[in-house]
């Protein structure tokens, strides 16, 4: 088991280097703190949202007072008629308004009695601010589902949404930040490997009877340990900043783990293609940053033009973000995110195979 000795060596090279270690551990910490301060906490600016209750049942008014008004990121203003609300929206006094149509209470009651409900809410929003409106829509959507205790429409399974009355912005943003953090593993992975190449240590190792897969495994095992530590830090900090994990934490972990594998694989392919750190580093950022945007780590992908979404979806990270959000916010179970998991695993397998092929070519001199 040579690759274990190799992995151990690679790991030691990182954790005995205070600067590298500091960067790897401080990075997720700093990143989460920054986003946490910007997004989380009690001092978040709340968005004004108008509500027009046409149903006027006990359930509808409870929905307004117990659910909508309890969401810290929303400031609820009640309206008596639609015209007034529309004017207010046009004047930017409110960001969106929610009309609760008559029949809402009945449908929710149906749901409580285990019948299929058909709950409709009309939400009118200010299109000019994609980010804010998408967050409001997502928040309201989640709030209704938890209030009505209905199954998630996107899933065919029978898991209930947790009765969670507070969907904070952190819930929505944290999975994206974590995926971004894992995307940063691309340069990290490339750096470790290219350093050996540039200094000639790789050449030295190549004069020993060691196989390409042993080298690749040796590097990626060490990097995976680092990635796992980062994921744990991310999750702990996310929770500390108000992210609540509704779904299974191990499922979320699996998604993050596969994402890390993809990042490491991409980093190693870049390393195989470059000769020096100075070549590899910019190339990695050139890959990581556009992918971060395309994958919707900061802004929901749904707000982007379709062809951009299409490009984003060719890469693993968009799938990681949506799957992680499904699990963390909506409590989706394994079968609901199976497609994404298969896609991520396939990508990881493909990129590692490519890495081994490139390594083998390099070994041939």
């Amino acid at each position, binding site marked *: 088991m*040579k690759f274990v*000795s*190799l992995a151990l*060596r690679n790991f*030691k*090279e990182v954790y*005995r*280097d205070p600067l590298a270690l500091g960067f790897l551990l401080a990075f997720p910490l700093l990143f989460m703190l920054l986003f946490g301060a910007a997004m989380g906490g009690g001092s978040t600016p709340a968005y004004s949202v108008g509500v027009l209750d046409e149903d006027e049942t006990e359930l509808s008014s409870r929905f307004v007072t117990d659910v909508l008004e309890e969401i810290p990121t929303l400031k609820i203003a009640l309206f008596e008629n639609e015209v007034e609300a529309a004017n207010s929206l046009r004047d930017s006094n409110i960001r969106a308004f929610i009309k609760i149509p008559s029949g809402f209470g009945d449908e929710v009651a149906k749901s409580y009695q285990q019948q299929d409900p058909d709950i409709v809410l009309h939400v009118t929003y200010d299109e000019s601010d994609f980010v804010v409106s998408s967050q409001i829509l997502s928040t309201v959507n989640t709030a209704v589902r938890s209030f009505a205790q209905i199954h998630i429409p996107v899933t065919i399974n029978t898991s209930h949404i947790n009765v969670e009355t507070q969907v904070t912005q952190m819930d929505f943003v944290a999975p994206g930040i974590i995926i971004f953090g894992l995307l940063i593993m691309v340069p990290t992975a490339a750096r470790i490997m290219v350093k050996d190449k540039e*200094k*000639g*240590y790789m*050449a*030295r*190792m*190549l*004069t*020993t*009877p*060691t196989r390409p897969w042993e080298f690749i495994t040796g590097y990626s095992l060490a990097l995976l340990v680092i990635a796992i530590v980062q994921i744990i830090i991310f999750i702990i900090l996310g929770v500390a900043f108000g992210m609540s994990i509704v779904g299974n934490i191990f499922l979320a972990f699996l998604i993050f783990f596969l994402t890390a594998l993809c990042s490491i694989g991409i980093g190693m392919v870049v390393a195989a293609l470059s000769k020096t750190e100075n070549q590899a580093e910019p190339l990695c950022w050139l890959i990581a940053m556009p992918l971060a945007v395309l994958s919707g780590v900061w802004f929901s992908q749904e707000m982007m033009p379709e062809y951009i979404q299409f490009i984003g979806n060719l890469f693993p990270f968009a799938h990681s973000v949506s799957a992680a959000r499904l699990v963390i916010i909506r409590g989706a179970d394994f079968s609901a995110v199976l497609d994404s998991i298969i896609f991520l695993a396939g990508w990881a397998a493909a990129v590692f195979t490519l890495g081994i092929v490139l390594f083998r070519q390099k070994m*041939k*001199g």
Partner: protein
Amino acid sequence: MWRHKLSEQELNREIDDSLAIQTFDLSRSFGPIRAVNDLNIDISRGELFALLGPNGSGKTTTINMLCCLLKPTRGTAHVLGFDINRQSNSVKSLIGTSPQDTTLSERLSPLENLELMARLNNVAPDKAKKWSAGLVEVMGLGDRAKDQVGKFSGGMKRRLSIAMSLISDPAVVFLDEPTLGLDPQARRALWDYIGNLKGEKTILLTTHYMEEADYLADRVGIIDEGKIAALGTSIDLKSMVIDKQIVVINGWNITIAALGSIKSRYQDVKVNGGQVIIAGKNLDFKEITDYVHSTGAIIRSAYFKEPSLEDAYLRITGKELKA
């Protein structure tokens, strides 16, 4: 890249697998540069062979091909009977290589560096531990065995680098400029260590230091522009310039007039301070000293100088070997 693979019948000479290293028209070009050009050498088992040549003569390229890091563009070589082109994994498991540039794992200790190299060479973990502990002492790194090597001196790093090439007890060892950049003392110590390995292992070392080849090697191959210019024991090589004799005279009171008459009598005369150096064919020592004496000069000492490997090198390549 176009690669010519020779079948055994196509090889230009007979294969002799009792040899440790045999090269067959071994060549490597980089674009228009012919770094190694039709190299044919035979190295016996247990021999210490030195490739002597200036910078850029193709020494490193030769070593890199023999240790399977670099594919030849033409020709091949056998290491202990295994072909470097087709059986690289077998070759790799029999050799130890110390690259020209000291490359270590900087954050590891000497012990860890040695153990890892042993493991990469398929030495079992317990043996790897034992051998490393032993070698670290032999190399005089015992008191720093557990410190990170990044801050070691150049000499210590180089000793470790060489130890790393020996850790798996390989039958064939390649040492690319093992004493490059070391101070004379450290170089001496390393020579003694390498000298102790003689006979036990086949060693191919490259150097651009004359004294090193002279002191260590059983045979010396002078390499120039990728070709072997001369090959033999250092005595063989020196005897190639035996026709050129040198008489050195140290004396006082060598006047300008005296010098003038000496210079007119002998063809090749150089003056260096109080030293007169006379070179030529079939010099008669007694005749020369008598003549110098007759000019009124006082001779303190006079001797025949042995031709050095340097003289041989200069004669063979027409170039001075600069460090």
